[in-house]
């Protein structure tokens, strides 16, 4: 219970009993933000930094970030690298295979806006042209600590989601927005 009490501000101990009551928002958001499972998916050199973040020196798993090999089990997609036009369709397909609620972190200058390949004939100018993005992470490539910071920012966003606000389980974001409170 120690961890729960530390993390959930709205939890209450009834006097004289072991029963804890918590707002369901806090409980579910705490669980969700503590197990951000990304898709094992990299496109270019940013993926090397992403792999370094998973490995022992930076140890992403202590934040609950544990790469999953299939989009069906993933909560978040790190778009780590340059998105070329030929890769756009597979990315949309993978994104649609992820269950709701799903999140996207655009990692590095290329995924944000095309980066140094902005004037290229073959590069998508930002992954937000094809899928909605939650966190934009600048850098070329960003260091693993920066990716961790992006995940912390995403966890902050998750902790503000409410059941009332649709819980992030929105339709496929056709409008490109999430009903976050």
């Amino acid at each position, binding site marked *: 219970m120690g961890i729960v009490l530390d993390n959930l501000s709205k939890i209450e101990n009834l006097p004289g009993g072991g029963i804890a009551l918590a707002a369901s928002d806090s409980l579910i958001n705490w669980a969700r933000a503590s197990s951000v499972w990304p898709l094992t998916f990299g496109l270019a050199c940013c993926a090397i930094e992403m792999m370094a973040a998973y490995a022992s020196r930076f140890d992403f798993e202590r934040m609950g970030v544990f790469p999953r090999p299939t989009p069906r089990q993933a909560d978040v997609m790190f778009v780590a690298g340059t998105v070329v*036009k*030929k890769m*756009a369709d597979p990315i949309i397909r993978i994104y649609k295979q992820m269950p709701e609620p799903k999140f996207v972190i655009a990692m590095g200058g290329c995924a944000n806006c095309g980066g140094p390949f*902005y*004037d290229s004939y*073959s590069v998508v*100018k930002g992954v937000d*042209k*094809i899928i909605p993005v939650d966190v934009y992470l600048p850098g070329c490539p960003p260091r693993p600590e920066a990716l961790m910071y992006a995940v912390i920012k995403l966890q902050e966003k998750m902790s503000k989601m409410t059941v009332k606000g649709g819980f992030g389980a929105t339709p496929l974001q056709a409008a490109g927005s999430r009903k976050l409170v």
Partner: protein
Amino acid sequence: MTAEEIFTKLQASFSGLRIAEAQVKEYPTWTVPAQSVRAVFEQLHSEFSFGYLDVVTATDWSGPVSPKGYPQSPAVAIGAAAAPPASARDVFEVVYIVTALSTGIKLCLRCEIPRKEGASVPSLYGIFMAADWQEREVYDMFGIHFEGHPNLKRILTPETQQGYPLRKDYEHIPDKFD
């Protein structure tokens, strides 16, 4: 057998074969007319054991053209087009680099073809395995047709790509991803 001896032997049957004016790196560089490309490589492969095709690439030798249609980032200002250099001429040049692994000789063969729509050279498909994808890449980037290639279609860019991006006069047509 040195590269010079190979050149002498080959020139007996292919009179169009010349030593190029500009050498590529330290490789012996020859120019070869388009109609004898396949025969020259067949002989290099069978007789002189050149079994490894390093590179097939191409050059567009026409003068500079101001880029059209690109979504210019505001930080970059494109100045006036530079004057064409003395080497500018209306040709595509297909460049082959081929290696004999047994003797360690690397040769560079250059083949100039007129620069026009549907410019073509004979394919090396069937002699070298590596020719398949490399010729498709040259076709994708320059629109040079390789006669005899059984599967000549785009390899790097999507099927929706318009035009050939590494041609100097390529005009970029913005699509939904730009």
